[in-house]
């Protein structure tokens, strides 16, 4: 048994047990456009990774491939040691373990806030209705929209809707949370209330992959910043390193445009 580790180099063997999401050599095309080019990315348990980059760089697509809302052309993605299965029951089971928060909230429009948070627990986890409601109310309180439980999504502000969406994802007890530009569709004054919830989650040790344009959040909550441009991961660094001393010209150019304005 111990012989195995000898054959591998120390760096390769050590993190394997702690790796939650692994993408290796992932490629994807949209027609002629090569949106993801040889992406290698490993996210450890409890890590908060922020993906930034200019529009059209493939960040959202990357995020969506992790729970297979987008299929990939080649390469492998595994979550908690299991490769992503084909579309079907098994994939559905795996998706339940991967929380996702969308740019446009996507709350179920015909269900109340409370029902939105209960639905997955009851229909997917087969939880008891009463337990599901209790848990939903706790989560809604935690993200600060407990009072709105019986309203319909359309009656809530964008910030409130997005917090409900976070609660809905958390209700499934996910192993990892994906955030696909969670604040991009929000009015400036509502961005903070959502970021605060996300920061609290990060402090609680949730594994998070966050695609965002919020540099403040990246600085304060991320363990690692991944900078993408033109379908490639150009740079990976700690937030401090990345923001104060970016290595690549592409990142320098990007930061100069967004920071000095």
């Amino acid at each position, binding site marked *: 048994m111990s012989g195995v580790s000898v054959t591998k180099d120390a760096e390769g063997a050590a993190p394997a047990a702690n790796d939650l999401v692994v993408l290796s050599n992932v490629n994807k095309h949209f027609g002629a456009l090569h949106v993801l080019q040889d992406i290698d990315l490993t996210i450890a348990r409890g890590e908060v990774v922020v993906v930034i980059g200019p529009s059209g760089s493939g960040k959202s697509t990357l995020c969506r491939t992790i*729970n297979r*809302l987008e299929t990939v052309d080649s390469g492998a993605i595994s979550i908690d040691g299991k490769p992503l299965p084909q*579309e*079907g*029951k098994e994939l*559905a*089971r*795996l*998706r*339940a*373990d*991967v*929380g*996702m928060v*969308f740019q*446009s*909230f*996507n*709350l*179920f*429009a*015909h269900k109340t806030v409370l029902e939105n948070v209960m*639905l*997955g627990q009851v*229909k*997917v*986890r087969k939880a008891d209705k009463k337990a599901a409601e209790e848990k939903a109310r706790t989560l809604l309180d935690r993200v600060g929209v407990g009072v709105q439980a019986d309203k*319909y999504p*359309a009656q809530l502000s964008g910030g409130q809707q997005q917090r409900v*969406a976070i609660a*809905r*994802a958390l209700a*499934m007890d996910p192993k990892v949370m994906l955030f696909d530009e969670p604040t991009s569709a929000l009015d400036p004054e509502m961005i903070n209330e959502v970021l605060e919830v996300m920061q609290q989650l990060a402090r609680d040790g949730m594994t998070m992959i966050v695609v965002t344009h919020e540099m403040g959040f990246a600085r304060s909550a991320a363990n690692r910043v991944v900078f993408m441009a033109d379908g490639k991961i150009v740079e990976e660094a700690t937030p401090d390193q990345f923001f104060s001393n970016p290595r690549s010209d592409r990142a320098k150019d990007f930061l100069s445009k967004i920071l000095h304005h």
Partner: protein
Amino acid sequence: MNVLLDNFPEFRDGFIGTVSITAVSSVIALFLGVIIAGFRVSPVPPLRYFGTAWVTLMRNTPLTLLFLIFFFVVPEILFPGMSPFVLGSLALGFYTSSFVCEAVRSGINTVPLGQAEAARSIGMTFAQTLQIVVLPQATRTVIPPLSSIFIALTKNSAIAGAFSVAELFGWQKLMSDKGYDIVPVFIWVAIGYLVVTFTISGLFRLLERRMEVAR
């Protein structure tokens, strides 16, 4: 005007026949139509092909031809001894299911893609996504075209009369064979159909209003 009074039992039987075949084939059409619409948007290619083939075949075949097939071919090879009523309901139900399917599919397409993505992302299967999230939101859009489809179905049921199913239009044939003046006969038949079709549009208008309040 005594055409009606003199032959009221036959007229009543015809009216009941029209209502029954309309009701039974509506249920068949609605049930099959929703299922086939599910097939047509399914991620499983064979189901999609089957759905497309079904709609193409049923929608593009003249209804009379479909009736001929159901009355003279189906009993020969599949189920001998089926009553004309069942055969007629099946033919009409299958035919109309293709129109229902397309109406439902257009309703599904009006529901934003994000709704289905959110449902899938919390681990719902395709069937659950459709049943719990997409179809309930599609219903509102589908109701007005469905109303037209079921009214068309009612009127199409007249073809069943030519295949020895007791229904309203068959009564007209019976009366003209008996030598009655054709004009009042047709008026009574028309009134019979109007009662059914007005009821259908009334029901659907009620449904539409109910749905509006729900949001």
